[in-house]
């Protein structure tokens, strides 16, 4: 855009459209990232397999839609408890054994898990790109010169509702307080009689339930394939670091920032370059505000 040119109606609409896109995208990124910020913040585990659970959620939506014609947004009622159980199971089988190990061991364990899950999907469902096309994807909404489809809006509303529910859970329930206490100081929490193993188990299960739900929600908006999670996992780390680890409200704001960078970047420089901006943003944030924009307590033990 030529900055000297006066803003006509077309430019104003473009800006409004970009703004709406940013908010819609940000809401979905937030749900993906809150699960990660929980796991990273409380368990201090870098979970590289996070995106793979998103991918599994997408496949759940795809198969239930293709085989039984169930709308992805109804599948959520099944997906959330199902992924909670998957999270519990993964914690007991894989994560529990390495929770006290070094970061190296944890990183490579979750990386192994990521390879495992990606290829289980490849073996079971092949590498084809699949699409979920429910009726609401083709319903366009036009408000004040901006256009978006109903699926995006519904996904956004549900994602934000779930995120806010989680934030409320963390803030006002006893379990939530216990989890936050563990995030801030693991040793002190243990001394206060908190069963950290239970906290970790619960954290992992909730985190995976959130990302599984996010997978179901984004299934109509992105193509479904075994490595679909990869594009989201690195992005989620940008959000998590921006927002401060374990800080769920921060993750919400971080998601909006990342979405804004992505939307504006692809508008100005073309869609091919969009990822490079959030990685550059990521490095800048790590260098200048490693504890997050708001400086989360407890992050120094992770090396921020």
């Amino acid at each position: 855009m030529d900055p000297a040119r006066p803003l006509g109606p077309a430019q104003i609409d473009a800006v409004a459209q970009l703004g709406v896109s940013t908010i819609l995208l940000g809401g979905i990124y937030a749900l993906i990232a809150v699960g990660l910020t929980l796991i990273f913040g409380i368990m201090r585990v870098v979970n590289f397999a996070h995106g793979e659970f998103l991918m599994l959620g997408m496949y759940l939506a795809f198969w239930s839609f293709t085989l039984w014609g169930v709308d992805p947004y109804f599948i959520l009622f099944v997906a959330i408890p199902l992924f909670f159980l998957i999270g519990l199971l993964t914690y007991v089988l894989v994560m529990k054994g390495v929770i006290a190990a070094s970061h190296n061991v944890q990183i490579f364990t979750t990386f192994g898990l990521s390879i495992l899950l990606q290829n289980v999907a490849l073996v079971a469902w092949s590498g084809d790109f699949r699409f979920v096309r429910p009726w609401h994807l083709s319903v366009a909404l036009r408000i004040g010169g901006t256009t978006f489809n109903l699926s995006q809006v519904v996904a956004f509303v549900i994602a934000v509702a779930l995120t806010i529910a989680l934030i409320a859970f963390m803030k006002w329930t006893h379990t939530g307080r216990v989890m936050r206490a563990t995030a801030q100081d693991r040793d002190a929490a243990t001394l206060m009689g908190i069963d950290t193993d239970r906290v970790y188990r619960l954290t992992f299960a909730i985190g995976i339930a959130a990302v599984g739900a996010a997978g179901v929600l984004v299934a109509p908006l992105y193509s479904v394939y075994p490595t679909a999670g990869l594009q989201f996992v690195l992005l989620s780390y940008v959000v998590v670091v921006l927002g401060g680890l374990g800080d769920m409200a921060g993750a919400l704001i971080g998601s909006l920032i990342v979405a804004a960078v992505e939307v504006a970047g692809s508008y100005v420089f073309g869609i091919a370059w969009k990822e490079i901006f959030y990685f550059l943003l990521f490095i800048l944030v790590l260098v200048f505000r490693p504890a997050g924009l708001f400086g989360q307590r407890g992050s120094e033990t992770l090396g921020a």
Partner: protein
Amino acid sequence: MTALSRHAGALVLFGAAAVVPLVVRDAFFLDSLVLILLWGALSAAWNLAGGYAGQVSIGHASFFGIGAYAGAIMVTRFHQGPWLGMLLGVAISIVAGLVLGFLSNRLKGPYFALSTIALSQVLLIAVSRWRGFTAGGEGIPVPFRPGFATLGLGHVAWVYLALAVAILYYGAEMYLERSRIGYQLAGVREDEDAAEAIGIATRKLKVIAITVSAALTSVCGTLWAQYIGFVDPAYVFSVDLSVRFALNSIIGGLGTALGPYLGSILITLLETYLRATFSGLKTGFTGLYLVIYGAALILVVRWVREGLTGIAARLRVRMAGGARGARAHA
């Protein structure tokens, strides 16, 4: 311990690698050997930063990719020899290594690891999109021109070249272990604050270790590209590759000179075996071997935490323990 017993493992390993091409002429076998040596050398280069200095990077594919592309572009675009490309790659990697070194002084642990991934992703995207110069996502086929100057070598020659690099890196790390800098690096790794308190220039040391590690990685990147004959950004800058460098060292033994090579043997053989036994052609399931590989990875990382060299050292102590223990208690 005498010098001979200290190097016994390396003597057996490198000795076997030197003798094998004289006896075996099977191309598949020699190819595996070249790759084991190259992956081992790459992992040894990573080990300098990740093992000796304790700066675990999951972005070393950055330097590998820089080396690979510098060689390939020098040959195809500027019609110069790959050796010049190797030099250029080293120069660029030193600059990128300084950037990573700077990051290592701002960040620790998982944060540093994440920043290294971000660096490799930035390079991946930049090389993929800068079509005019790098040929973008399609990659560059590197032409085969016979001769040492153009690195157009047969399998046997490649074995010896890879072996030379492997021995060089091994020797450098063996020397480092016993040098003043080596002990200072161990201090940085074990307790940075304490090391700084006794006057070790920890920040400078970390930058040096990472930068040298980057340069050594880049050299192998150029060699690899010339050996394989093809570079593409999605592979040479991939996180998978970075993980592989780290994994060999971790499984073999972090911060040991021989560890990366042992890890490379184990992982490369495991991968080759699984790929041959559970390939898509044989089982009808593409990716089945990677399912097993992923599961094996989880188990190996959990059970071989101290690395193969650590296990070997413990066994040796136990075996010698009878005699020595008796003397100590007397």
